[in-house]
């Protein structure tokens, strides 16, 4: 469960998040949509405190991570993130990318981390690339490795920050397929994306953000069929042609 309460975020003079309130119950798949510069990336980055809100609180599974001396690193172990730019560790092999944090942070034995890591690589269809380096892989493959790396932490929550935005068009589907597959499971997911098809297909709930505010919040049917806000309608008319 993630709860944002009265979250405000400024970058200098720039008011990026304006009194954001959002509750993501355990197990829900929620998609955050919005024009670029709307604050949606900042919003998801507040959920693991890569951005610290200027004011307001963020609570993850009952721990208020915005509190002073909060065990942020501990909470992050169960909140995995997949980035737009993959951010794989380029000096490590694919398998080492998967095993580094579990062994260093969670104290999992090397053998155990390798076993589960190989299983997740199998799952994203890349077990044959275990010994390759990230630079030897295509963008789509790198992002699938990044997803496997996230999963190997055995997280309760998965955050995706525009996971397909940096990919060539022909590679988007292979990554989406993996994410859709994950959405069948009990894990909590927050996905910032421009992929409307994915939102329709996999989301329990769609949140529309513009100018730092949540303007629409409901089921995919509600969002795509009868949105209430004018700006949502305008956005959809541009996206869905």
């Amino acid at each position: 469960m993630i709860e944002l309460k009265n979250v405000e975020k400024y970058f200098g003079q720039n008011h990026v998040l304006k009194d954001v309130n959002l509750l993501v119950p355990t197990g829900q798949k929620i998609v955050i949509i919005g024009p670029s510069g709307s604050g949606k990336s900042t919003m998801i980055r507040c959920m693991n405190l890569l951005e610290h809100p200027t004011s307001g609180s963020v609570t993850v599974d009952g721990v208020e991570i915005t509190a002073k001396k909060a065990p942020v690193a501990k909470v992050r172990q169960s909140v995995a993130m997949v980035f737009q730019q993959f951010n794989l560790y380029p000096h490590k092999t694919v398998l080492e990318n998967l095993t580094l944090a579990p062994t260093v942070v969670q104290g999992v034995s090397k053998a155990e981390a390798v076993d589960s890591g190989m299983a997740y690589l199998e799952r994203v269809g890349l077990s044959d690339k275990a010994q390759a380096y990230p630079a030897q892989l295509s963008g789509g493959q790198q992002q699938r490795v990044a997803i496997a790396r996230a999963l190997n932490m055995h997280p309760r929550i998965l955050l995706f920050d525009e996971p397909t935005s940096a990919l060539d068009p022909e590679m988007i589907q292979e990554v989406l397929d993996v994410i859709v597959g994950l959405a069948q499971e009990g894990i909590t997911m927050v996905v910032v994306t421009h992929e409307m098809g994915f939102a329709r297909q996999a989301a329990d709930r769609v949140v529309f953000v513009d100018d730092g505010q949540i303007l629409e919040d409901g089921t995919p049917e509600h969002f795509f069929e009868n949105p209430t806000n004018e700006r949502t309608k305008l956005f959809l008319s541009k996206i869905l042609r």
Partner: protein
Amino acid sequence: MSVGFSQWFSNIVYMFNLQHWQLFFQVGGLVGLLHGLLFTLEISLLGLLFALILGVIFGVLATSQWKVMRAVARVYVEFFQNTPLMLQAIFIAFGLPIVWPAARHIPLFMVIVIAVSLYHGAYISEAVRAGIQSIHRGQLEASLSQGMTYVQAMRYVVIPQALRVVLPPLTNQAVNLIKNTSIGVAIGFAELMYQAKMYSDMAATGPSFLLAALMYFILCFPLARLAKRLEDKAEVNN
């Protein structure tokens, strides 16, 4: 003009005057220089080790989130980069014992080690800082998002990548460090440069300095080539 030229020419010949070389070898010049070379090597190796440690520590501090730490690193770097190494060595050898009497027990060998470590540590820390800052911010964020602490992220993810960037300038620092151990002359410790000066005064200038130069060159040249190779390799990788 012709007088000037013949004077110049005879000076050159003088440097290679066989009798001078004989004298130089008779007084044990070569063995003396080799003794100096051995000290130069020992000082260089120890100095390089400590300079690396200082460089990594202050380089990391210079990029840390804590303002005070960054300020400390800044002061260290600016102080040691902007005063002459020779002055620092003389201060440690002769000035420090006035302020802190126990310091007069520091052997001169260690004075040089300390001086070149502090001096080159400052330059290495600048290289390390630049190397860390050249690593994309996403690397730190990915590490933190996986629950690593800042120190773990630095240790396992950022610094190993930064070191690859830093290797060529680091090798250059090693070359400079070896040459700068010659400040032994200023404080009276018998490393290679000091020995060369002594045998020059005692026997013959030409052989003494020519051979010392050759020995420094043999130490430094392979390292300089290595730096060049690493730079070329880094370019290819980019």
